[in-house]
């Protein structure tokens, strides 16, 4: 089970590298989801270490917030794409047109 901790740390690092290297706005949002999942995995692993269910409830709330965040983020991307005709992150230096 300790291997899961290593996996979650590596997943977080991979997500961070992806968020820094990719310039596609949607892939960036996906990398953030990957990092959120890494944190969830770590919380569940520690929850099973200590035999405490509170962390799993916290993971449930994290998933809820991630769903809301993805919805709002994608709608912002759609709105910005209509104005800029691009999903390049460098074009998004101003949201006000």
């Amino acid at each position: 089970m300790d291997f899961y901790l290593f996996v979650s740390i590596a997943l977080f690092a991979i997500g961070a590298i992806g968020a820094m290297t990719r310039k596609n706005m949607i892939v960036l949002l996906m990398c953030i989801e990957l990092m959120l999942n890494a944190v969830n995995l770590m919380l569940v692993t520690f929850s099973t270490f200590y035999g405490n269910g509170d962390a799993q409830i916290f993971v449930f709330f994290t998933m809820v917030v991630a769903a809301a965040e993805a919805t709002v983020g994608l709608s912002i991307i759609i709105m910005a794409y209509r104005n800029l005709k691009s999903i390049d992150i460098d074009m998004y230096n101003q949201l006000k047109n």
Partner: protein
Amino acid sequence: MSLQIISIILGSLTLASALLVVFSKHPVRSVIYLVVTFFFITSMYIMMNAQFLAIVNMIVYAGAIMVLFLFVLMLLNLNKEAEPVTTKGSQLAAFIAGGSLFLVLITALKDTLTLGQTYRAHNDQIGLVKQLGNLLFTKYLVAFEITSILFIAAMVGAILLAKREKQIIE
């Protein structure tokens, strides 16, 4: 022992598919590999006997959020030439930053990685729906209700933002 081998195989497959998410050039392929990653994470939850979270992860992430991403990608109608790329220098900087983040986190959790065996809890029933439901609807009831307000705000915000601007002016 066999459980250890299965968890190592699952973990390496998870990391491989996560790397494919980051390094595949086409965004649709990234989405598909992300779904694969979430499936592997779900199987890890099952290995740790967190059944409720396994089901929720499968339904919410692989089922709902990833389909949303796929729909948005198809709505935007991107061709392969439009895919922006970063320069080599910033890629190298990102790799160094991510690698040092990985090393720092490993160092911070080094003791936990070895001490985890001694703190192994004997109660493996905590991840079941009954236990978590008891907790969710007693101790965390207020937070659970506030979640619905968050969802209403997100829903209204998403509809308002994605609406065409001409309709707003009218």
